[in-house]
């Protein structure tokens, strides 16, 4: 099953302000050189939030985030600013 089909099952209320961000884009390039592709954040993310485009930068689709927190932990450069969405926005589980 494609990851998109899994994510379709979820209820999201989108926060217009991204709750995830790359702190220093240059470090991702360095990470790709050292750790190879896909980088640790891309590998551990269960929701395909991160993608490596044009072989030079990470794009963050924060709208897909299931808020597990793995990317921040996996990033070897502590280069991900990770917060919860504001005001109860973001994902809301029914079973949990």
């Amino acid at each position, binding site marked *: 099953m494609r990851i998109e089909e899994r994510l379709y099952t979820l209820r999201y209320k989108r926060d217009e302000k991204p709750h995830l961000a790359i702190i220093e884009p240059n470090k991702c390039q360095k990470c790709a050189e050292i750790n190879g592709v896909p980088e640790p954040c891309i590998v551990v993310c269960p929701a395909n939030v991160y993608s490596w485009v044009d072989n030079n930068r990470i794009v963050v689709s924060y709208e897909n985030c299931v808020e597990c927190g793995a990317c921040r932990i996996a990033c070897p450069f502590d280069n991900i600013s990770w917060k919860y969405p504001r005001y*109860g926005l973001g994902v809301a589980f029914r*079973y949990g």
Partner: protein
Amino acid sequence: MEFDVIVIGAGPAGSAAALTAAKGGAKVLLLEKGPEPGSKNVSGAMIRTEEIAKVFDTSSMPFERKVKNVDLIFMDSTGKVRISVDISSGLINVGRLKLDKWMAQQAEKAGAVLVTKTTALGVEKDGEKYKVVTDRGSISGSKVVLAEGVNALISMGMKIRPDLEPEHSVQAVKEVYNLNKDEINKRLGFKSDEEGSSWRIFGTNPVPYAGFLYTYKDAIAIGVGIPMSILVKKKISPYTVLDELKERLGINELVKGGSLREYSAKVIPEQGFPSYRACSGKIYLAGDSIGLINALTFNGIGPAVISGSIAGKAALEGYECFKYEEELMKDKEIKGVVKARPLIQELTKEENLNYYVNFLGDALHSWAYGSLSLNLDMPRLIKHLMLGMGVLKA
């Protein structure tokens, strides 16, 4: 407005803390970032009733099914071994949204004020009191309980405890499939709508993992946890491991006709109290935020509730840190979590998981064919037996 106790996080630890402090007469604020308690929480969804009953009135506890058997399944590259253990009572499958809401409601009934959709961002010292900063403004309180869950941003930001590392974190993903009650009963061999099951799955392909299956009234949950450092090293996504496990166990057949209702993920901490501090001043940490999960028994909700209740009492009485940490260590369940950690860390190492799954598979297969041959690695077995004895004595 001012509160005696501000509890951050309305999960099992937070609601237990709020309930205990409110019952003792404190003015309690319970802050929850999600739209309702439980909506941001993910777990294996099995509880031990007697642990919950130490803090909550369980007479009206919402539950899905009562576990009648726990199946242990070991899968190596060639086959699988399955052992079924009958359970007489006490293990219950629950849905977290319903359970967490019910817990928070008990805290509210005792007088705690629940505020949802509010994310706490930090805690600042404000003279003798604390100022809790949220995305909706600040609020003052005499004591604070941090029941933030595994991503304990405030506790880590205040350096009360260290950050999580991939080497000590497990990444878990889970899927919930709905299916009508009768089909679940038929396919899993239950005699009534109340009977349920719990599977523990240990496998080595494509990477070492621990999986689980739980039964809801009208749904089946299947999930897997993989050491994060292994995922990073092997460059394998957690859902790829889940897909492999489902394929090997015939889960797609088991849930045939049903549809995927929810997909979720959670990080499971492998380290914590007492190597992490659980307290600073009059700030008390509880539950997942200090790693109180027993991976040997797949139990996190029990230790969360118990530690939360101790934190609630600590806040009520204004315990000094040493006293709070001492009270935590006195508890049987929490001591069990602490004692199990060295063994769990050994068993989640790639070479050890591979060894045991293959060892059990080979031994039982050879026995089934008519001769028992054991590939014993004595030094390894003795080391783990010694570690295990520390756990068993607890």
